[in-house]
């Protein structure tokens, strides 16, 4: 039956109104935007890079290089460990496939050799036979390392891109070893390319405890020349949350503010630290989130490893400063200032504290972000100037408007003002739903996406065409107005659903395989088909049912 319960009618109207509400911010002028709450006004469709202008990079991390470097370190450690355990060997060599082979002088010492290798790193796996030992990391460890490298690269890229003052960059992992970087609105990519592989400044400093305690939390008025004031990362994040305006000022200040200026002007929590660098980030080999042994309480901790040079200076500094705090500074923020518990010699140490596992992960990531772990090569680049984007927006808009008007014209001409009007109304609601859907999903509208919208317009009147043509047939077969409309609607329904679902298959697969602007096309097309299912099966039905009840026509002008 065509009849629709009243509550369903109301539900449909509310749903459509809601869609209109969510799509509305897209067409509001900026002056009105300021009067509205932020969460609502920002609920807009993002323009893709091809429309707003900007740069898109696909970067590939050189994971082989990372592995090779790591295995070179492993081979050094294995050599010294073997000597220590007095295992005689002919050669320890790094193979091109990322393995290390150890050639022993005496086959009988094989168990001792394997023990030595295990002592270097428990995640190493020894294989091979006889006097030859083949050493490699377990697959699990390799996967972990790969993920770690990419995560770390993303974190560093974010810092680098933020420094260039761009807003809303997109930095995401793509596949196993790639990073997608999208920077809207950027004109010249030279600076960005130079920054991509830049090393962050990670340094270890002693905290000037005398100054910190004497001032009792307040900022010291005068600093000795050996000391500088640096805000803590937590403090800066609190500032960002509590006083976003001040944070924006700091970000956009030109010339950039020194850490001390930030402390004095905006009063985030700061620490006085000695300017002398104890160890630099380039000497930090690795840092990872882990847990204490069960006997010690099993708390989440951060463990770190220095190279030989770093280990020596760190050992000397910690021995002399037990009980004092050691500030770890990253790009003008102190990410952590743990208290030195004991002299840390032997190149590796741990940071304990009241951490959650998530915090230790984050801290370890920050510690590692001194240097990019792997070279990033640009393997795809697309840059669109803002004026070119504006041209594309113009062309897309004109095409969309002309296409829509033409389709509406044909529907009116073929089915008359009433039924043509129903069809066009349904098409309009469909378009509204797509726009609302894209706003809520935060999807990007690209130029091909606009083409998808135009296609949606052309295809979304199809369901009405199917229904109307069926009604015409039923009418010709001698049915009454109500009978023809009901039968026409019901019989057309199966075809409407099947044809939409099959077309949707193409849309979804295109989304899965496509990238960039094409994804935008797949999004708008697929959303269009989905919403079309709603307008065709429910909305049109409501229109027809309401109209029938209201006018009770005996004759259909179709």
């Amino acid at each position, binding site marked *: 039956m065509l009849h629709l319960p009243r509550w369903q009618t109301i539900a449909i109207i509310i749903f459509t109104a809601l869609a209109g509400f969510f799509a509305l911010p897209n067409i509001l002028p900026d002056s009105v935007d300021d009067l509205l709450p932020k969460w609502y006004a920002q609920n807009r469709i993002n323009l893709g890079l091809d429309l707003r202008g900007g740069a898109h990079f*696909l970067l*590939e991390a*050189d994971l082989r290089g990372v592995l090779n470097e790591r295995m070179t370190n492993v081979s050094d450690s294995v050599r010294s460990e073997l000597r220590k355990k007095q295992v005689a060997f002919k050669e320890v060599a790094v193979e091109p496939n990322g393995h290390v082979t150890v050639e022993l002088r005496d086959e009988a010492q094989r168990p001792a050799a394997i023990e030595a290798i295990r002592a270097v790193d428990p995640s190493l796996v020894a294989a091979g036979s006889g006097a030859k030992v083949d050493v490699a990391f377990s697959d699990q460890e390799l996967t972990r390392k790969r993920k770690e490298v990419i995560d770390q690269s993303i974190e560093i890229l974010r810092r680098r891109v933020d420094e260039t003052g761009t807003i809303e960059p997109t930095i995401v992992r793509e596949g196993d070893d790639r990073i997608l970087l999208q920077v809207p609105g950027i004109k010249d990519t*030279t600076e960005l390319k*130079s920054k991509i592989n*830049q090393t962050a400044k990670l340094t270890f400093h002693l905290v000037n405890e005398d100054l910190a305690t004497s001032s009792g939390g307040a900022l010291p008025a005068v600093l000795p020349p050996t000391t500088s004031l640096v805000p803590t990362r937590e403090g800066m994040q609190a500032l960002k949350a509590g006083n976003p305006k001040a944070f924006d000022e700091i970000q956009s200040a030109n010339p950039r503010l020194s850490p001390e200026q930030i402390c004095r002007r905006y009063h985030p929590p700061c620490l006085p630290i000695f300017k002398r660098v104890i160890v630099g980030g*380039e000497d930090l080999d690795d840092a990872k989130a882990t847990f204490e042994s069960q006997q010690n309480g099993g708390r989440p901790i951060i463990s770190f490893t220095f190279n030989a040079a770093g280990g020596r200076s760190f050992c000397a500094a910690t021995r002399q400063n037990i009980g004092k705090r050691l500030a770890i500074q990253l790009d003008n923020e102190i990410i952590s200032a743990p208290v030195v518990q004991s002299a840390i010699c032997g190149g590796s140490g741990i940071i304990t504290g009241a951490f959650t596992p998530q915090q230790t992960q984050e801290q370890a990531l920050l510690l590692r972000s001194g*240097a990019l772990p792997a*070279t990033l*090569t*640009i*393997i795809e*680049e*697309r*840059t669109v*100037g803002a004026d*070119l984007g504006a*041209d*594309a927006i113009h062309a897309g808009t004109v*095409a969309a408007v*002309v*296409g829509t008007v*033409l*389709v509406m014209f*044909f529907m009116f*001409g073929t089915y*008359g*003002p*009433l039924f*043509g009007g129903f069809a066009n109304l349904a098409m309009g609601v469909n378009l509204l739903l797509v726009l609302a859907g894209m706003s809520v999903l935060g999807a990007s509208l690209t*130029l*091909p996406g*606009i*083409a998808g919208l*135009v*296609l949606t317009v*052309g*295809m979304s*009147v*199809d369901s009405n*065409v*199917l229904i109307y*043509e*069926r009604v*015409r*047939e039923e009418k010709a077969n001698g049915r009454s107005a109500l009978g023809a409309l009901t039968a026409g609607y019901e019989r057309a329904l199966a*075809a409407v659903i*099947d*044809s939409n679902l*099959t*077309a*949707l*298959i*193409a849309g979804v*697969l*295109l989304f899965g395989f*496509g*990238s960039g602007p*094409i994804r935008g096309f*797949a999004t708008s097309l697929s959303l269009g088909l989905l919403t079309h299912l709603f307008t065709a099966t429910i909305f049109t039905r409501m229109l027809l049912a309401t109209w029938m009840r209201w006018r009770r026509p005996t004759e259909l002008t179709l």
Partner: protein
Amino acid sequence: MLWKPHHIVPAHTKINFMGHRLWALGLSTLVNVLSLAGVFVFGLNFGIDFEGGIAIQVRAKQGTIQLDELRNTTGALGIGEVSLQEFGDKSSALIRVQRQQGNAECVAHADAVMKRRVGNGWSVKPGAEGTGDVVFSAPSQLDAGGWRDAVSRVGLTVLERELPRANTNTVKIDMTPEQRAEWCQQVAIKVVDDAISNQYDVRGTESVGPKVGAELMHSGIIAVLATLAAIAIYMWFRFEWQFGIGALISMLHDVISTIGIFVLLRLDFSLTALAAVLTIAGYSINDTVVVFDRVRENMRRYKKLGLVDVLNLSINETLSRTVMTSITVFVAVLALVIFGGPVLYSFSVAMLWGVIVGTYSSIWIACAGLVYMKLRPEQFRREEEGAKAKA
């Protein structure tokens, strides 16, 4: 009422579509064979998405673009094949440069760019044979940050950590031949930029390295095949297997002949073209479903009628809908062709063709296929009897 509704197609047409099926099949076979032959003989005009390479959109700073002059300038740069086309309006052009090899020539280009952009004292030379290494020399001593900045002038991104910490005059950058090939795309962009920047504004640049190009091609082919297979399987579940095969054949027909249009008109076959191909498959199946749906219904209703008659009847009954929907999609796409701008041009033209061929194929290819697969009304009769027996 202001105006009365119109019947675009008169009601109760009795066109003998299936009677002409041999002609249609002959024509389609010819078009498809020619399309495939065209791909092998003339090749597809692959855009940089699939082949790798560089595309630069430029606009003349003054007046209209002088294509011949620009062709001479860019052709003499020694960066391989360069093709030009007017893009959008008279003052804009698209410069397409073939994918660059990571050879010694590329390093020589980098050397020239370095000398032009940074200074005469600089040089770039290839490293040892068989590797992709490159050696940079500077007129004065530089630290790691200085080197990083310097090499980025020729589009090279190097890990600062891997650069010498002490001040040096030369630095060797370790690269594999593959990494160098990726970098050489960047070098070629700079070469073109240097040659044309006093007369033209660069409005957009795209470069796709050899690796991504090969992958996009691979995933594109998989996307098309997966889509066709998924739709055919859906049809098989919703209808009979014969319908699934019929739909598959008609989609293949549309995809191949669309590729033929790309060969014939020398349109750019890029990622958007791939989107067009898949959308055409989706559109074509949309049309086919409507006809098939009616075929199924009529087979149940007119059990005495032969298959060819049922098909003719169904096609005629749905004809007005088919024509009407084709027109609405056609006009929408036409708006894209005319107003959508140069980026969407290939896509829109292909879609326009797709609307026509999709409509045609759902009538002649999909339905004619059913005739040859011996889909008989008896099957439905058995089905219905089975259903009755159960009840």
